[in-house]
């Protein structure tokens, strides 16, 4: 029997899956390359595979930030999950990675725990480099794949087929990368508090993200997908692939990063390449808000929940 404290982690995983899955298969759905139910099943499947096969690396980073007990792990997950939900309600882009780190800091500070600033520095550097790396990946991938496609004697139908297969593969790959990178946000605190073995934490985390993917609305997937497809199908495919590469890279590094910020970076890279301004002040504000605002909200919520738990 699993303890009730795990419920906040499952809730966090659900919030993560619901929040991030639109970025993964949205363009494929909007371009009609993949049907919604196929996308949901594929996304959920590859998220679980990614979590189980490669998710363990992030657990160490989450666990190294501060000391956690089962209760503080529960509070941390709940605060991070609520942060994501609140931000979704007020239609602000939420990053689960930034929410969980904020919540961890909140709990750590309030409980006068030692904060490992070396690990925190590593996390902060990864956050800042995520959009930059996605932009670079988009730039390079765009050039390389264009060289290959242009060298092939392809007609309009073959090119269409390449793009659709590309959407499909990039979607599966990004879902795998999301699982590998972000599962630590979901159950990392339970590994740190010695409640779960890494393999079980990866499995439970992956399944709870998949639950979030299943509860995702078709309408939002279309909206997010169309925003990316508006670039042009090839650029949208490159954007998806760059997200996958970037998030997967940070899965190897072992630092959970924001998939939404990887999207912004990839779109920026495409914009630079095409000489089009794809990023405006509002988007820059949202990135900065993700880096600063999200952790602050999570810290505040973690404070409140810790106080409440002390009273109860």
């Amino acid at each position, binding site marked *: 029997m699993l303890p009730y404290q795990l419920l906040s982690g499952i809730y966090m995983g659900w919030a993560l899956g619901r929040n991030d899955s639109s970025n993964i298969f949205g363009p494929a759905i909007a371009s009609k390359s993949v049907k919604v139910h196929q996308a949901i099943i594929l996304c959920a499947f590859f998220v679980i595979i990614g979590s189980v096969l490669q998710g363990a690396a992030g657990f160490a980073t989450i666990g190294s930030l501060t000391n956690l007990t089962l209760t503080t792990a529960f509070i941390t997950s709940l605060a991070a999950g609520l942060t994501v939900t609140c931000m979704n309600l007020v239609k602000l882009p939420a990053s689960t990675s930034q929410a969980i780190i904020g919540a961890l800091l909140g709990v750590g500070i309030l409980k006068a725990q030692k904060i490992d600033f070396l690990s925190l520095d590593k996390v902060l550097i990864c956050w800042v480099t995520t959009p930059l790396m996605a932009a670079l990946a988009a730039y390079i991938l765009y050039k390389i794949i264009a060289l290959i496609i242009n060298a092939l004697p392809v*007609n309009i*139908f073959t090119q*269409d087929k390449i793009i659709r297969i590309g959407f499909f593969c990039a979607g599966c790959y990004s879902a795998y990368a999301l699982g590998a990178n972000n599962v630590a946000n979901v159950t990392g605190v339970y590994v740190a508090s010695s409640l779960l073995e890494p393999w079980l934490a990866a499995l439970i985390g992956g399944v709870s993200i998949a639950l979030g993917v299943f509860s995702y609305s078709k309408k939002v997937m279309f909206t997010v997908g169309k925003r990316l497809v508006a670039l*042009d199908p090839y650029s949208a495919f490159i954007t998806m692939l760059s997200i996958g590469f970037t998030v997967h890279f940070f899965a190897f590094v072992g630092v959970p990063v924001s998939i939404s910020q990887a999207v912004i970076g990839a779109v920026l890279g495409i914009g630079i390449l095409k000489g089009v301004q794809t990023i405006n002040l509002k988007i820059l504000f949202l990135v900065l808000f993700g880096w600063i605002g999200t952790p602050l909200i999570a810290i505040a919520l973690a404070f409140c929940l810790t106080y409440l738990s002390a009273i109860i």
Partner: protein
Amino acid sequence: MNFLWKKEKSIIAKIEQYLQECDTCRDRFHACMKKMITMNNSSAEDKLIKLVHESESKADDLRREIEYELYNKALIPESREDILNILETLDVIPNTFEEICFEMCLEKIQISAPFKQGFLTLVEKNLHAFALIREAIAGLFYKKMDVMDRIHSVDQYESEVDKIERDLIGQVFASDLSKADKILLRQIIKNIAQISDLAQAVGDKLTIAIVKRRI
């Protein structure tokens, strides 16, 4: 993997069929115009006119089937839009073939001896422009040749046709024909010359599709 691309294969086959039907319509129109210009035979019962009408209707039916299948979620929206634009613009040409035949027939248009050669040249040049654009479309759809070369040749033909059209109208109005006959002939000349204009319009759509796909 083949089952995954069933819809595409069906569309590709239908487009090929449609283009072949356009070719048939062009050949029948050519034969019909030759007969009407050289023999002044513009009977409504003429078998050739019926044949032109038949192939035009068949091409129309095929185009509708292609549109239906394209809207039925085959291909990404951008490819779908480009293919539909190209086919819809191209489809005006067989319609024009049919209209010219009926016009010649219903208005009992007789081409006087001095203009016969001019009319034949005008028809042939226009049909050549159509043949080139037909090749260019096949190039885009099946990558059989350089599309931009063909589009460029269509533009050249269109300029030539414009000159022939102006010369022919000038000759008609300089002749002793009645005002009414002159006006009828001018209208026919303009309608025939429209074929190369339409071919050029298809060329423009093709160019857009190609440029959009340049990575």
